[in-house]
């Protein structure tokens, strides 16, 4: 495995995202929205702080998730469509290195996008002179980064199983409706037959429970919440790495013998 080759492929993904300027458009929209929220004067100062934090964190999480889903889902199909894959794969680059480079490229690009949002968010916090519980906030950032990795790996595998549009739609549904689906499964589970219960258990383990990685509520109400224990963070890290590894392995399996 050549690390330099993986880095070069990853850098190409990042360069595309930066030069296409999609990220900047999203960040500009974020700036505008945050500015509007900060100008609202019908809240008391403490209420405004909480509202701003709640809105900003949710918006950043959603916008980054959409960015990572779109970026990952279009990577491989675009390479095939535009045939840019031929000169690339004509190099001494293995399919594993190519895929890993693409995955890391999407992941780092989404982290870059998220970092830009963070800068905007922190400026807003500074402007409002709001307090921030750094412990829980850093945990929120870390778990968001893990979630982006899962979404990136999911986007890749779905883009090989179906087309770009279907991959984006499916991954978005999983992100937006994940917590609702989990609540529904909980409700149905108690009323189900043993066979259905098994199906629900398998479904729950097969799909990543992305809402577990969302600490935005706790970050907003950090006056009443303390940082979550390190053991939970460790378990969530393993859970994320497991999903990323499984999705990446399936993508590699599908891509390994694919005719280009």
């Amino acid at each position, binding site marked *: 495995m050549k690390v330099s080759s993986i880095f070069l492929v990853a850098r190409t993904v990042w360069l595309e995202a930066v030069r296409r300027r999609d990220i900047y458009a999203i960040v500009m929209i974020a700036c505008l929205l945050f500015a509007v929220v900060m100008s609202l004067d019908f809240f008391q100062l403490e209420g405004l702080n909480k509202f701003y934090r709640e809105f900003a964190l949710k918006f950043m999480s959603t916008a980054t998730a959409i960015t990572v889903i779109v970026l990952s889902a279009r990577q491989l199909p675009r390479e095939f469509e535009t045939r840019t894959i031929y000169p690339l794969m004509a*190099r001494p680059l*293995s399919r594993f290195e190519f895929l890993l480079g693409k995955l890391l490229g999407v992941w780092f690009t989404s982290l870059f996008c998220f970092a830009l949002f963070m800068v905007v968010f922190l400026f807003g916090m500074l402007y409002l002179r709001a307090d921030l519980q750094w412990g829980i906030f850093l945990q929120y950032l870390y778990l968001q980064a893990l979630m982006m990795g899962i979404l990136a790996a999911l986007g890749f595998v779905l883009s090989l199983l179906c087309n770009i549009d279907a991959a984006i739609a499916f991954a978005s549904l999983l992100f937006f409706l994940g917590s609702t689906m989990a609540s529904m499964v909980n409700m149905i589970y108690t009323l189900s037959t043993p066979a259905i219960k098994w199906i629900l258990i398998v479904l729950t383990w097969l799909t990543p429970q992305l809402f577990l990685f969302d600490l935005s509520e706790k970050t907003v109400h950090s006056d009443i919440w303390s940082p979550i224990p390190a053991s939970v963070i460790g378990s969530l890290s393993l859970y994320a790495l497991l999903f990323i590894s499984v999705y990446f392995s399936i993508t590699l399996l599908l891509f390994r013998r694919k005719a280009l």
Partner: protein
Amino acid sequence: MSKSLPSTVLIDVKDLEAGYGKGKHRTQALKGISFQVRSGECVGFIGANGAGKSTTLKILMGFRFPDAGEVTVFGCPAGEPESRARIGYLPEVALYYPFMKAGELLALYGGLGGLSKSELKDLIPDILKKVGLAGKENELLKSFSKGMQQRLGIAQSLITEPELLIYDELSSGLDPLGRHDLRELLNDLKKQGCTIFFSSHELGEVESLCDRVIMIHQGHLLRDAPLNDLLEECGDRSLETFYIQTLRQEAKAGE
């Protein structure tokens, strides 16, 4: 270009079979072709549209997998990174990342080929000059015309100074001047000992460059012979005459 040992077999294709589709819709693109390309040779690969040329070249590069037969390049199974490190490949139709600059693209391909930044710094302007794109390293590829993209394609194939060039549709998209420049460039590379294996519909180009010609038709190997032998066969006229005569004979035989 580093020279391989004299008369070493670089490409060895034995009983190659490949197809597209599944079940009832299966189309057999290659029906057991065999040939070799030796070091220092310049071999033209000709045939009508759908004859199986691009499929063969894709298998040599490891982009597709054969259904049957054996294909080795530099003694390794086709598509192994070790063999690809020694090949310069030009695809039939390729677009290059429009968000990149010409210099960045060559640095990417050169870097993947194992060249260091310092080596690339000197090499990139030289190679761009060779293909008629001098001073274009900082221009975004989205502003490049089709002909310029093809020139850049040739540049990327040469960046690692490969021993073997595999070109699919050699001068596609180039204007007459571009074709002339490319012929000169390939003749220079031939003189330096580079092995060239290319497909083309431009038979004049094949005639002016090649020592040997391999002709395939509907997945079968029709001829594999030195260019002069083929020209003699059709009364020393041209490769085009030979090509048309051979295809007509095939059509009659198939009736």
